[in-house]
């Protein structure tokens, strides 16, 4: 499975589309245990990514993700901006300037990105954050994009009973239990968009 620059551009495209469609839901999730802005943050960020990619036409998969990551950092703000920005920027750096990659290459890149998120935010699995969708997704990526998407979705749903220990939701203590983490939900969207990027070809 060759994953070329086109694939990564289509991925970012699918992310922008899906985040736009689900923005309201993400904001609702954030209203319950956060500050009701996650959907708007993600939409603003991926709209900026779409513009930046169109303007700069990066030539390699690594350049696509690095640019997307930098753009998220410069346009999102909040916790999600630096974290998702780091995810993509680190993944992009890992891809180097090769003209294309394959599934193991993508997996290594995302693993590096997720590691960057964990280092930056200091969260671990089970803290009820985006990591609870991202970590299982990277694991499952061995089995293909669809498997990763399913794992991410499941990971997001599984944040429901968890007690938040990072981010705004942690202020709520016990009252954070029973709600899905908005960042985990958006991570599941981004991973699912990988599948669409293939289909869109």
């Amino acid at each position, binding site marked *: 499975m060759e994953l070329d620059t086109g694939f990564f551009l289509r991925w970012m495209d699918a992310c922008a589309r899906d985040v736009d469609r689900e923005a309201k839901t993400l*904001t609702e999730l954030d*209203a*319950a*245990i*956060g*500050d*009701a*802005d996650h959907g*708007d*943050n993600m939409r*603003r960020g991926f709209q900026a990514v779409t513009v930046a990619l169109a303007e700069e036409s990066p030539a390699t998969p690594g350049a696509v993700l690095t640019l997307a990551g930098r753009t998220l*950092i*410069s*346009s*999102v*703000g*909040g*916790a*999600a*901006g*630096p*974290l998702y920005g780091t995810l993509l920027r680190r993944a992009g750096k890992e891809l180097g300037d090769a003209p294309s990659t394959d599934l193991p290459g993508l997996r290594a890149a995302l693993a590096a990105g997720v590691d960057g998120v964990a280092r*930056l*935010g200091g969260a671990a699995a089970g803290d009820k954050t985006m990591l609870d969708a991202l970590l299982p997704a990277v694991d499952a990526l061995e089995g293909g994009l669809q498997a990763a998407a399913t794992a991410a979705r499941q990971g997001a749903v599984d944040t429901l009973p968890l*007690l938040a*220990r*990072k*981010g*705004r939701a*942690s*202020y*709520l*203590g016990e*009252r954070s239990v029973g709600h899905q983490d908005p960042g985990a939900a958006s991570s599941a969207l981004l991973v699912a968009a990988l599948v669409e990027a293939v289909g869109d070809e």
Partner: protein
Amino acid sequence: MKQLINVPETVVADALRGMAAAHPELTVDVSARLVVRRDAPVAGKVGLVSGGGSGHEPLHGGFVGPGMLDAACPGEVFTSPVPDQMVKAAAAVDGGAGVLFVVKNYTGDVLNFDMAAELAEDEGVQVAKVLVADDVAVVDSTFTAGRRGTGGTLFVEKIAGAAADEGAPLDRVAWIARKVADSCRSFGVALTACTTPAKGSPTFDLPDGELELGIGIHGEPGRERRGMMTAREIADATVDALLTDLQPTAPVLLLVNGMGGTPLLELYGFNAEVRRALDARGVVVARTLVGNYVTSLDMAGASVTFCQADEELLRLWDAPVRTAALRWGV
């Protein structure tokens, strides 16, 4: 919930245009999202930069001016600003003596200011940071993102701003800022939730006859919900929460702060009850500020912050300040 806005997307830009029109003594960059004192950089003076999500006005833009902040970086509503803003702000206010970032302790603010500090230092600006984490409602900080920064921010910005104005060097200004941050405690109560422009409806559901104790300033629910209480009962609960955490050994600066939707008439009445509660527990109040300073859009409710102040902090508090929202001595 109705709002006096054009469309949610332009709320922050519109407000910045309005600030620019009202305050010729400020340089407001609407597209870069910056509020800077017009005479920046002041040569040889440490520059103070703060910022955070919008929706807490007058914090931080209303505190830009001589004796307080040199620049503020407003983010989207309740969303911390992006590093680009802080890097530009640092460059604009660095008078050669370095820049202090005043950061409220939220994951987003911390991450973005951290990134900005690295980038600014790459550009040759010396940067120090102070973290404000004064909200005692966040109890166990090992299992949370740590205490939130709320009303204490005003004391940190005012007092560190005065120290910078006196010509103190960066490490001294940062030291004082940290001392103030360590000396502040806050606790807040909501009678209603607030309505963000993007959501257009209250961020959480708070029925008549109930209130939230231990709220933050981002429209998030608090730690505990209770049946409606009188001003006197709320004051007692608030002061108890504060003093359980820190029993002041010096006179305090007191901020009785409205969340945005509570009339000043009620805030003054609440101040009477807060003062009674402090008096009864032997706490001496040196200065009092009553009003809407660190708000949460249209939320009804109030927070109480005290800052334990030695002679030096008191002197710096009393020093002249000239901003849109706090002004005395000039």
